[in-house]
Structures are given as C-alpha cells and as structure tokens.
C-alpha cells in the first residue's frame, strides 16, 4: 500500500521528466553557463580561462561597435514591427468580410510564415540585384540596395517584416472575428463611414490581441539571424550588424566566447525588460 502511494506521489513527476530534462540540459544549464562565461576570458575551445568579472561588459559598453549594434538593432526592430504589423493588419481587414475566393487570399497572406528566413533572403538577394533585380526594374531605379550602407538595413528589415507578416495576419484575423458584428451595424445606422468605423471600432476592438502581437513581434524581430547571414553578413561596414549576428561573429569567427556571452546576456536582459515594461503598461490599461 505504501509502495503504491509512493508511485502515485512520484508518478506525477515522471510525466514531466522528459520535458524538464531537455529544458535542464539545453536551456537552464546553458543559460547559467552563458552568464558564467560572460565573466571570463576564454580560449579558442571556449573554456573559461581568466576571470575578468564585469570586464567583458565594460569592454562592450566602451566599444563603438557595440553601440552601433544596439542602434542598428533598435532601428531594425522598429521597422520590422511596424511593417509586419501593418501588413498583417491590412491583410486581415481585407479578409474580414466574406467574398468569393477568400480562402485563396487568406492562405496567400499567411503563407510567409511557412518560409525559411534563409530561403527568403536568397530570393530577395536576386530581387534586389542592381542590374537584373526586379525591384530596380519595376521602380526604374539604379540602386545597389544590399551594398549601400544607407539601404542595406532597410532591405533586411523589409524582408523580415514580410516573413513575420504571415503570423500577424492570423493573429489579427482571430482578433477581428472576436469583434461583435452588431456594433458595425449600429454605427452604420448612426451614419459612420468606413474610416470612422475602422478607427473607432476596429482598432479598439483589436487592442487586446494587438498587445500580444506587439510583444511577440518585438521578441521575434530581435532574434532575426538567417536573413542577415545570407543577405548582408552584417555589412556593408557594420550597417546591418544586429546583436544576434554580432554574437555569432564574435563567438564563431573571433572565438571571443566571453564577449559573445556577455552580449547574449545583454540581449536577454533587453528583451526581458521590454517585455516586463510592456506588461506593466498593459496592466495600467491602454484599453481604448
């Protein structure tokens, strides 16, 4: 009897073990190890050799390159989040009322979420090609998009916005379907036009999902990597050297694992703070 209750008591943990084991080995342990590494100078094998305390952080905070990474990342995130949310919102509004062919269109709008960042980057590379690319041809321009520090970041950001717009379309569609149809009818009776309805009814009705989407989008944008690697390799100069790319470069090209770890910790802290602040603001009630 006692044995059975023992199984009963610990059996419950048994079901959690596989998941927790993976988390422990590949998430919790490396998370703390990253913090640990960030306080050391490492050798080429990534072994911690010399304790430097906050040395890596101080090095970063006094390096121009790191501030550039932060600035580039912030601009990038702003463009990506605005762009992808706008695309998703427009698409969702267009598919809000039913019409013939709606299934085709809603599949088309959600499709970018199924595409890998690296594959998309290869396609964009050709689209933005200075002489044969379709973008210059359609716009009658002669711009070397990817090799011009003025445009490279915008190109990567637009590509990322496109990639992320698919899931935003789904979020906003779900949000729109939660809005009660009857308020639109009442507004029509009161003589509201479409624009008024959009700003007075649709946007406020979307505000809960809007918040969730914003948080997810910001976190996702911070983590963009494949498109930078394929399209620009952080260049030209350091104009697209996003933090994640800079981490990758420091660790796997320069073998400065300590510095890369410190950047990872800062990235984590940044995302954490942003998320917490956003939840605080939301709790205070930006409800319309």
């Amino acid at each position, binding site marked *: 009897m006692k044995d059975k209750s023992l199984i009963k008591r610990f059996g419950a943990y048994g079901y959690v073990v596989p998941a927790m084991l993976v988390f422990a080995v590949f998430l919790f342990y490396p998370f703390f190890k990253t913090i640990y590494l960030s306080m050391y100078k490492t050798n080429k094998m990534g072994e911690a050799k010399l304790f430097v305390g906050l040395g890596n952080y101080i090095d970063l905070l006094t390096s121009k390159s790191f501030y550039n990474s932060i600035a580039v990342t912030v601009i990038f995130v702003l463009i990506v989040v605005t762009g992808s949310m706008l695309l998703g919102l427009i698409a969702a509004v*267009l598919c809000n009322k039913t019409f013939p062919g709606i299934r085709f269109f809603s599949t088309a709008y959600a499709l970018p979420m199924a595409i890998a960042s690296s594959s998309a980057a290869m396609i964009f590379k050709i689209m933005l090609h200075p002489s044969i690319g379709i973008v210059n041809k359609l716009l009658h321009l002669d711009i070397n998009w990817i090799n011009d520090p003025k445009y490279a970041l915008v190109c990567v950001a637009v590509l990322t916005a496109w990639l992320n717009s698919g899931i935003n379309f*789904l979020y906003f569609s779900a949000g729109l379907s939660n809005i009660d149809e009857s308020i639109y009818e009442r507004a029509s009776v009161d003589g509201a036009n479409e624009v008024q309805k959009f700003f007075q009814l649709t946007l406020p009705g979307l505000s*809960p*999902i809007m918040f969730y989407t914003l948080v997810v989008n910001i976190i996702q944008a911070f983590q963009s990597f494949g498109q930078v690697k394929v399209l620009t390799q952080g260049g030209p100069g350091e104009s697209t050297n996003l933090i994640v790319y800079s981490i990758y470069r420091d660790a796997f090209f320069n073998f400065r694992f300590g510095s890369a770890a410190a950047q990872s910790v800062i990235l984590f802290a940044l995302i954490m703070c942003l998320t917490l602040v956003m939840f605080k603001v939301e709790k205070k009630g930006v409800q319309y």
Partner: protein
Amino acid sequence: MENIIAKSPEHISREELIALQKLENQKAKIKRRSETGILIGANVVMAILILLPLLYAISIAFMPSSELFTTAMNLIPQHPTLENFHQALVKVPLVRFVINSFVVAACITFGQIISCSLAAFSFSFLEFKGKNILFMIVMATMMIPGEATIISNYLTVSGWKWLDSYQVLIVPYLTSAMGIFLFRQFYMSFPISLYESAKIDGCSNIRFIFRILLPLTKSAIGAMAVYTFINAWNMYMWPLLVTGSNELRTVQIGIGMLDSVDSQSITLMIAGVVMIILPSISIFIVGQKQLIRGMFSGAVKG
C-alpha cells in the same frame, strides 16, 4: 424617388410601391456588388504584393540563365525549362539534404508531441507538490531567446563529440514550452469525469493518455505538428553551427552551397530554393485549418 416620397402614404398605389421596392433593391444590389468588386480588387493587389517574391522565384526557376541577364523586363520566362532543377540536383546533393531535413523535422515533431503531451497531462490532470511553480518555470523559458543559450549549447555538444550527427540536430529541440502550454490549454477543457471514470475502471495513466486523451485531442496535435515541422524544417542558426559535412547538412544550410558569386548559377540557386520551399508550403497549406483552430482555441483569445 422624391416625387413618391412627396406623395402622402394614402395616395401611393400598389404598383408604384412595388416599382419603388424593385428600384431600391436593384440599387442595393449594385452597391453590394461594387463593394465586393472593390474588396476583391484590393485583395488582388495585396496578394500580388505579398506573393511577389514567391512568384518571382518560381518564374526565375524556370528561366534559362541567358534570359535572366537582360535589362528588359523579364517577368515570365520566354522559353521555360526544367534544366535549372536538374542542374541544381546534380550540383549539390539536394536529395540528401531533403532527407536529412525530413528525418530531423519528423523526429523533432514526434518527440515534441510526446514530451509536451506527457508534461501537459501531468500539469492538468495530476496533483503534485510544486506543480504551479514548475509550470511557471516552464512558461518563463519562453522568455529566454535561443540566441542567449546557443553558445553554451554549442560548447556542450562539441564537448560531447556530438557535432555532425543527427542527435545534435534533434535532441535539443525535443520539447517546447509553447507545446506544453498549447496541450495544457486543450486538456483543461477536457471533461475530468472521463479521466475519473477511466481511473475507476482501472485504466492506467499511460493507457489513458494514449488510448483516450491523445485520440480525442487530435486538433491540438495537428496544430502542433504543422507548427513544429515547419519550424524545424526552416531551422537555420543551430544546423549552421553544428553540422559541417554534406552527409548531415539540412536543406536550409545546404542550399547555401548554390549561393555563389558565379552569376550563371543564380537560376540554379533559385530553382533549389523553390524545391526546398515546396515541402514547407505544402504542409502549411494542407494543415492551415488545423493550425489556426489549434492556435486560437482559447489560447490567445483576447
């Protein structure tokens, strides 16, 4: 219409009323039709904009490379050819990459469904000490970006001599907080009485999970499968770091081998890209309904 309104209701004849009704109906119909027309028009423009990169890629994939290098507008191949696909398959072991990606993505998907459903079962049906704290820890893991752990993970697996193997691509991804959350969300609305009566009939927990719970929550599994498979198929940074040989490269990394400065190979590269996008897009189109139903049933509603 005004002259009819001007008439007082008593003076309006039946015929006039019917004519008026017809007229107004027609007007409303025209209005509705033109509204639908505008809506469809706007959708076509938007869809072309969104699909442009994909359509362009497909078009280039069928284009002989001589046609690509012109300053003239060349949206549609004049002499469509399959040569690019053939050459892409010859130039790099693309089939091998596709098989690798399939194996890895399938294992990850299967593993996540098992580990997440087991954990979610425990979190929603069983009582144990520290359950809430443990669940909160799981949820908190969603806050840790993969990039914050990737360096240490790389050092760990290279210490284990796991580099360039299937397990290094699979094992770190065998569970996910989102999956646990999604399944738990579904299990919370599962009638607990069904679990209790199964227990009374002497059904063990494991049996309950595989015989009753999983079959009855197929839509959650479907959503999870589509989402996980596509993400695993599209994985980039981790495979880039931990694989080096052709035998173990996944499609996303392998396709980079076609990405060379050699301008003649642009059409090859795009043909390759089209081939590797196809599986993830097909799975997405087939599983889209499942995915949406699973993602939004209570999980992120308002």
